């Protein structure tokens, strides 16, 4: 029987199979950040262990960092302590550390690909669920807990039961105004936030292969929001072109050797998947969410669905709408909003800033809207300046902040106030995610830009 892309990568990393138990999986690349690593280092110390492969480990500061005045000391003492702890641990164990202000600094899932740390056919983990992003390169990449961070630091391995395999096929050209974010929100709205739990997803078909690497990253990033541990796309010429010549990617002979393996990385024709979904690209419209999980999404033109009040699961549905201040049967179009957040590991790349600026160019930000535009990394920030996007944004009344996770999880000061509505290009609309009482509407950079101009939910297609 043929093998799937996932099988090929997984099987080549199994150090040992435990009968009636998990596989011991070798990890090629381990990314760490300030929030989920400190307790892992304490564990390491308590057991008297060392970091087994510091050269396979990369540290960055992103979750808990300010997005203004990064050259000044971090004001919040708890955040400052967490950042210092990471720096100290990285130094002590010989791990590359890219702190605030470093040219390679940025959101862990943005900088991994930028630096060539993310490679096809590799296994990549990080104490962050959106590690699934790196699957865009045909890597097996998934988020882990702190105990597992400790495991990988100590032994460069992790123990995992091999997940089941799912394939999601979408073919055909995308409709006008439809971005990678809309594809992902569409899939999640169809299969729910637990539809892929227990599975690793392969995205297949021209709707994915036609995307740029940035677009593929956005899709794979959101795999976790359908419950999947990760998602991947078979590497192709576009992938190799992107990876080549980056700081940590293989060079010379190593490159040739790697390419030989990488070219085998696609699912065999007779490979079997445990579950398969197929959709048509023309079903997908610009999407928007109306509730408190990413599965509560619809086309921007649709009404909020009505649910049978007799069913028990609908208690959670009502609770969700109540939190959002919305009612069944209402249109999302025209609803007033207060904040716009462009950024995060989902939509904080250069392509997202290009898309946003394509709409706001020559127009003005609405007075009722506070906009936070946060690049995913220093590299993205520099590109925004070099490509003249910063001028467009500033002429339209926007200001650019400094890189980090920012309002996506609101660990720093970038918190949306209680009861306020934010159109956010991030990944989670959970209650309180972007600040206690904040109401999140997930959307693409195009929808966010249209909302930033009008101050309400607006179909971006009229500006394209």
């Amino acid at each position, binding site marked *: 029987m043929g093998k799937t892309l996932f099988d090929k990568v997984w099987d080549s990393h199994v150090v040992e199979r435990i009968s009636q138990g998990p596989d011991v999986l070798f990890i090629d690349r381990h990314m760490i950040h300030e929030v989920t690593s*400190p*307790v892992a280092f304490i564990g390491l110390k308590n057991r008297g262990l060392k970091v087994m492969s510091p050269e396979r480990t990369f540290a960055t500061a992103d979750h808990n960092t300010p997005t203004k005045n990064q050259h000044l000391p971090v004001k919040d003492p708890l955040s400052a302590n967490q950042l210092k702890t990471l720096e100290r641990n990285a130094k002590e164990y010989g791990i590359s550390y890219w702190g605030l202000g470093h040219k390679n600094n940025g959101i862990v899932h943005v900088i991994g690909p930028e630096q060539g740390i993310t490679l096809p056919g590799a296994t990549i983990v990080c104490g962050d669920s959106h590690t699934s992003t790196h699957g865009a390169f045909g890597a097996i990449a998934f988020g882990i807990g702190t105990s597992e961070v400790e495991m990988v630091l100590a032994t460069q391995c*992790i123990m995992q039961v091999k997940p089941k395999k799912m394939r999601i096929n979408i073919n055909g050209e995308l409709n006008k105004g439809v971005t990678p974010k809309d594809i992902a929100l569409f899939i999640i709205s169809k299969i729910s936030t637990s539809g892929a739990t227990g599975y690793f997803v392969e995205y297949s078909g021209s709707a994915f292969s036609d995307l740029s690497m940035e677009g593929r990253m956005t899709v794979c990033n959101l795999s976790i929001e359908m419950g999947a541990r990760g998602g991947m796309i078979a590497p192709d010429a576009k992938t190799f072109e992107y990876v080549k010549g980056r700081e940590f990617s293989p060079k010379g002979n190593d490159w040739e050797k790697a390419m030989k393996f990488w070219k085998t990385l696609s699912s065999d024709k007779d490979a079997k998947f445990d579950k398969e979904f197929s959709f048509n690209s023309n079903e997908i419209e610009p999407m928007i969410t109306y509730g408190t999980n990413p599965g509560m999404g619809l086309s921007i033109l649709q009404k909020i669905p009505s649910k049978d009040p007799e069913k028990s699961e609908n208690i959670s549905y009502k609770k969700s709408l109540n939190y959002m201040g919305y009612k069944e049967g209402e249109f999302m179009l025209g609803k007033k909003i207060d904040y716009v957040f462009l950024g995060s590991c989902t939509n904080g790349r250069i392509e997202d800033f290009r898309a946003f600026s394509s709409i706001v160019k020559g127009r003005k930000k609405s007075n009722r809207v506070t906009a936070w535009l946060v690049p995913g990394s220093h590299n993205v920030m520099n590109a925004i300046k070099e490509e003249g996007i910063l001028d467009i944004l500033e002429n339209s009344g926007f200001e650019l902040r400094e890189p980090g996770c920012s309002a996506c999880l609101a660990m720093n000061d970038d918190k949306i106030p209680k009861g306020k509505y934010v159109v956010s290009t991030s990944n989670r609309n959970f209650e309180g995610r972007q600040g206690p009482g904040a109401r999140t509407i997930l959307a693409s950079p195009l929808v966010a830009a249209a909302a930033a101009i009008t101050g309400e939910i607006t179909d971006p297609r009229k500006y394209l």
Partner: protein
Amino acid sequence: MTYDPLKILESTAVPLPIENVDTDQIIPARFLKATERVGFGENLFRDWRYNQDGSLKNDFILNNENFSGKILIGGKNFGSGSSREHAVWAIYDYGFRCVVSSFFADIFKNNCLNIGVLPVQISDQFLSQIFDEVYRNPKTIIKINLLEEFISVEGIEKTEKISITAYKKDNMTNGFDDIDYLVNIKEKIKNFSSKRNF
């Protein structure tokens, strides 16, 4: 960090019949700034448990003195979202050793098994029976027998099997974790590593 072995647990339970309870609800990100594993239990379900001024929300189940115990019963798709192990630390530190639901998110489940909280996945029908029974009688005792792999509930005839791999069961009933195992095969791992191209 090792934990106390868990073999058989008999306890009353706290019912939380909400679906898709995500890890941001279990512990909001603003409480993840610690560099040690202390104080997470206090902030378990922070924004459901407390008002913004710090006063208790009386309608939340953890603030209802009729309900207590070492078992938390949650609605379907429990623990979705972020990979933060802090969510399970909060559950453990608050005093729960077991979470019962009809469906768990993957990373949450792994995190539970790694730090000694037993996730018990049961059918939707059994879950709704247990919710009814616990609401009817908050003193209902639930028995988690990990040694024999079943869950039973006082007042309900039906029992269900606890599904767990032999490896994880051995860990949980002895208080072992994966690092103990991995450290023992370090030479094999080093050998594997030396043959990697990247």
